[in-house]
């Protein structure tokens, strides 16, 4: 915050709260990335709610977005992904997601390096952006933070006898979803050890149905691990929220068990950079065998 402070003293910047708080000596969180592209597309992929929660710890940085109590997306960035990662304690706070996304895209398609800084409760989140192709330009963004709302905790029991896991190639799965009935109301996921192995059925308003089946021997499938048949239905709108993540993901993991809770992992990778993950939890619709 070198130049913002100077501009505040000159009266150009009026909002004192947006400068770092002087009651804090040090930054709680300092991380730096050389390339912003993966981070930006990952943030864009989970930008479906107003506010997101950032939580940092020794294990990395988590950004969680929820809508209602039925869908949750978490962006997970390991410390190794960053060129620099220092965290003191476990700071957590909420920010407006669209403001964060706008700030990351200030320089459009030009690649930038980014430094993320946070001092502590009440202090704004600072982003320092520097485009690679022009060293005369630098941006400081300070984004208002609010108190954190603890995200819900979802979990699939790893030891459950019904835990089914499929790993698929991202672009292929994205194509499948692209071809599904866009007007459908509900999606039904069937994962079974026998044929059809993996089946997605769409159920439309007018009782229209369509389905896609993927055999476990398909080239799209990297790993197929299924012990018991699981069938669950999900709201298509919620499944569609994973679209942006799916479009850029190189690999996707689909996990579910008898409870029907759907866990999807998207591996986001650009060029040769380290990967980061986006995880979605989607709760199933209740009656499966009602009609």
């Amino acid at each position, binding site marked *: 915050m070198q*130049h913002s402070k100077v*501009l505040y003293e000159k009266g150009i910047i009026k*909002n004192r709260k947006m400068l770092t708080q002087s009651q804090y000596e040090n930054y709680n969180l300092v991380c730096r990335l050389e390339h912003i592209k993966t981070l930006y597309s990952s943030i864009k992929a989970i930008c479906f709610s107003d506010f997101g929660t950032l939580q940092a710890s020794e294990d990395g940085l988590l950004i969680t977005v929820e809508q209602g109590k039925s869908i949750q997306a978490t962006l997970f960035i390991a410390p190794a992904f960053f060129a620099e990662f220092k965290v003191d304690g476990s700071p957590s706070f909420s920010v*407006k997601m669209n403001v964060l996304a*706008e700030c990351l895209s*200030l320089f459009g398609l*030009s690649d930038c390096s980014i430094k993320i800084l946070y001092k502590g409760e009440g202090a704004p989140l600072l982003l320092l952006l520097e485009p690679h192709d022009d060293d005369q*330009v630098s941006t400081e963004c*300070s*984004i208002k933070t609010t108190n954190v709302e603890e995200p819900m905790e979802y979990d699939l029991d790893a030891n459950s006898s019904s835990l089914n896991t499929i790993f698929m190639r991202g672009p292929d799965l994205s194509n499948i979803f692209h071809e599904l009935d866009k007007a459908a109301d509900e999606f039904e996921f069937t994962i079974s050890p026998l044929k059809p192995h993996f089946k997605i059925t769409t159920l439309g308003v007018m009782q229209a149905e369509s389905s896609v089946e993927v055999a476990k021997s398909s080239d799209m499938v990297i790993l197929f691990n299924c012990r018991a048949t699981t069938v669950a239905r999900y709201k298509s709108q919620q499944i569609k929220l994973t679209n942006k993540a799916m479009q850029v993901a190189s690999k996707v993991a689909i996990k579910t068990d008898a409870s029907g809770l759907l866990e999807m992992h998207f591996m986001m990778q650009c060029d040769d950079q380290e990967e980061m993950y986006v995880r979605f939890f989607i709760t199933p619709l209740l009656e499966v065998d009602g009609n």
Partner: protein
Amino acid sequence: MTICEKLRNSSVTECAAIKLCQSNWSLAAMKFRAKMLDVLYMREFQAIAATLAKLAKDCVMIVAQERMHFIVNEEHCSTSSPLVWVSIASKDYFPEYQMTPARPEQEFIVLVMSAMHLSRSLAVLRSGSSSSVHSCKLNLKQIQFPCISVIASVVSPNSSEPREVVHDVPVTVIPASDWASFMLPKVPNTQIVLGVPSLRLLRSLIDKLKNISPSLIFHGSTAGELNLVAESEMATITTRFSRLLLHKPDQGQSGAGAETSEPEISCSVDTRKASAFFNALQLPNEEIMIGIDSERCICLQLDIRSNVVLHSILPAVCV
């Protein structure tokens, strides 16, 4: 358009609105014809027209002996485009250039036309590898209505003979009595002028900032720094452009003693208006001159080439 282009020597008449000739001018006396030959200049001229078309519905064309000017006015209603004008040294672009005003004592021919029609009529000049343009003529003429006839001579790769693509762009001729309201704006006095070489970054930056804050502060210093500040409830974004070339304010205009006294000047403008200007630019130039008149206006100047200059004024807003 494409079908017509296929017909050799075809003629396309584009007339969305037939504007009837107005009272006290005589087209018989008034003459204007100009011809461009250089591909690069033709592309630039097309880019200028395309820029104007993005900014406003109508543009004013002022034809003088030495220069040709285009003006698009600030639109006060729905859109938020700023005032933009372009001055072209006629000798640079047009090896053949002839203009005769309605009366010998007059200096100008003043026309108003649809910026979109003008831009569309020149679109053929942009064509890259598919066909090459030999020349482009502009010609003021009277058919049922006054119009600028844009005649491009185009050669397709599979034909050796050129064909002519003709667009007649309807114009309204402004009589000398009304010229006062159509005159070229003056570049305002600015305390500081900085050359920003990264127009592409500036454009995407301002485009994003319009979603953050309705007003944008330009803060320049004689040390060659320009800060752009957008503030809102949710965020404060400060972008610094450093090591910029400082262009001294024009001594002749600022007058004696009006030497830059303050080392730092700032002005806040409507972010949407600034964004409208930068998004409209269709020219390949990478450097733009930003002049700041303290809390009055931002004056933008794009030197397309030494004698072809695009200007814009963004008025100050209160924060």
